[in-house]
């Protein structure tokens, strides 16, 4: 397949598909460079000049925008690191160690995949209120760490690694932790990268939990903060600003995507676990 030329019709179909996918993004970008007043009269004005950076300036001049950006980075990074550490440890345990109720516990973890967030959000909110965790970074990060997907994902990955590696390392006198840390963990980097990217993206884009947990302006994440900055009829009288917000919020995601493009594509193709 490598080096094979695609049929022109296939190329055209792909170009058409790419155009359809790109059109809303180009539309968003063009709108973000127009003044709100011009767009209120005619959103078609996006296709002609003059263009302006005033919407981006308004975002950056917003008193708390950089704080929200920092909050999002802290929360998304904290969630990613936490999920990777916990999922790797749990995945190793479920895949390699024998302990009482191992199967039962794993089934419970799997059941967690079937429980939607909506079902637990009220008790979780009450619990966090009792613990005084709202409006704090732990309050925003901790819910991400309880996801079952990471544990399941890493368990499957550890199971796919031949057990002969364990036996060889143990014969050489390695402890269980050394085996995990120095032999098996490095082999899981592709899975870690995939899980890390997905966790980061999910935490960055999360809106609902930050909306009800971080209720003071200085603790908003970027998604909630930018929403709070919108006026009531943003889609009518503040369309340019609204689109600039969308572009601004997606820049870090774009950076993550470009940096981890290979892992994301591989994960999408379902080939990360082999």
């Amino acid at each position, binding site marked *: 397949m490598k080096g094979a030329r695609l049929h022109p019709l296939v190329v055209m179909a792909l170009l058409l598909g790419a155009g359809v996918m790109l059109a809303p993004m180009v539309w968003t970008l063009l709108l973000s460079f127009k003044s709100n007043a011009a767009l209120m009269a*005619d959103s078609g004005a996006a296709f002609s000049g003059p263009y302006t950076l005033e919407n981006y300036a*308004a975002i950056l001049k*917003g008193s*708390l925008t950089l704080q929200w950006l920092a909050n999002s980075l802290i929360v998304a990074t904290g969630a990613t690191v936490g999920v990777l550490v916990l999922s790797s440890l749990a995945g190793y345990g479920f895949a390699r160690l024998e302990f009482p109720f191992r199967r039962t516990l794993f089934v419970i973890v799997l059941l967690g995949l079937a429980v939607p967030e909506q079902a637990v959000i009220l008790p979780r909110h009450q619990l966090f209120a009792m613990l005084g965790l709202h409006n704090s970074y732990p309050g925003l990060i901790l819910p991400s760490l309880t996801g079952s997907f990471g544990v399941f994902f890493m368990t499957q990955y550890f199971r796919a690694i031949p057990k002969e590696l364990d036996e060889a390392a143990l014969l050489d006198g390695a402890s269980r932790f050394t085996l995990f840390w120095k032999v098996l963990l490095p082999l899981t980097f592709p899975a870690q990268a995939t899980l890390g990217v997905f966790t980061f993206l999910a935490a960055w884009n999360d809106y609902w939990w930050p909306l009800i947990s971080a*209720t003071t302006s200085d603790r908003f994440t970027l998604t909630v903060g930018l929403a709070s900055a919108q006026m009531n009829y943003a889609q009518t009288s*503040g369309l340019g600003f609204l689109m600039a917000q969308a572009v601004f919020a997606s820049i870090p995601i774009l950076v993550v995507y470009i940096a981890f493009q290979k892992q994301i594509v591989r994960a999408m193709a379902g080939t990360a676990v082999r």
Partner: protein
Amino acid sequence: MIGRALAFGFAGLLAGCAPADDRPEIVVQRFFGECGAAYGESTDVAAADTECGILTTLINRFEAENPDIRVKVNVVAWPGYPQLAAQIAAGDPPDLVTMHQSVISDYAGAGLIEPVEPLLAAARIDPAAFTPAARAGVEKEGRLYAMPWDTIGRLWHINTALMAEAGLMRGGKPVLPNSPEELLAHARQFRERTSKPYLIQAQVSAPDFHVALLYTYLLAQDAVIFPDARHIRLDTPQARAIVTVLRQLNAEGLTTLNQDFPAATAAFIQGEGGIFPVGTWMLGPYDAEAARSNSPLHGNYAVAPFPRLWGEEASFVDGHAWIVPAARRSPAERAAMARFLGFLAKYNYDWSRTGQLPAFAQVVESPAFRALPHRADIAALARTGKQLPGYVERQSAVQGLIGEELEAAITGAKPVDTALKDAERRVNRLYAQMM
């Protein structure tokens, strides 16, 4: 290195020893967006513009004039009710919150907000000073649950150039219909002479648009829409007559079709139709557009309350208000809150520059308010504006359900009778499911 560490530690120690700030703190939570870039430091209220700008400046000024009070401001995503519910559930509500008057019943009924008479008394605000429309919006079962801040109503925004072309201007004023028959006659005449639709309507993704029309003309006939807190009455001859006329306007092409709110807004500015029935909040933007020399609307903009078509003059209205979530507060905090409310009341005129009607009758009658563009034309709303009874809850969900059925009826997807019966049944089922 050691010296730096010691200096750092000493600085930290000093910071820890700083005198505690024992000023009372009030947490003010509001929507209307964030505009710190333009108004973050502004205290000149008269120079501020837009809802966000005026309110931001007002709060800055209050802080400047009241250094003995700490004000913490939370700007929440519109309309802010999910956050407020979460804060109340967590036992950490703010002190003063912006709320739509139509939502107050939901919170008052559950005992989540406090009656504000003591705070109003402390702020020396006489409830008799409120306009009838504003007072009705905050009064539930004889108690005042908020300080009203304005009245939001629907208006007829009118393109006078097109109305003149249609022969519907007299003495420089638009000629508005006085009956449903006259409405259809005017609309047909307008289309005949201008080849454009008489009405511009947001009929897509705007469920409250037609609900406001229906409520307005039902209230104008003194119809009892909500006989009690758990039932609605829509399958009535009055409702059928109103919806039938709206359907007729669509069927004859006398209105724009398939437009959402932004598209309808743009269509009005571009002069694609005669009248856009939308809220007071668009008065400012349209007036600014009419002042722009290269706008199709330039010099051709007028505005009026909904015309009387059935019954008496009336308009379904809502409004913004300041509510107080129920919580324990110290006397000093309550005194600070009262001072804040008193301050806001003093500046109600400035808020009315947004296009909304003032909540205080004295401001509505003031020469300064009447001198604002078009305000004399719409001041009657403060008197004719009608709210739903104080016991009516879940208006947001209810209007969504009615809006869906009205859309089906008006576009011809359902017979009017069936749509109204379905709307009634769905709303009553919603109320039956409420605890």
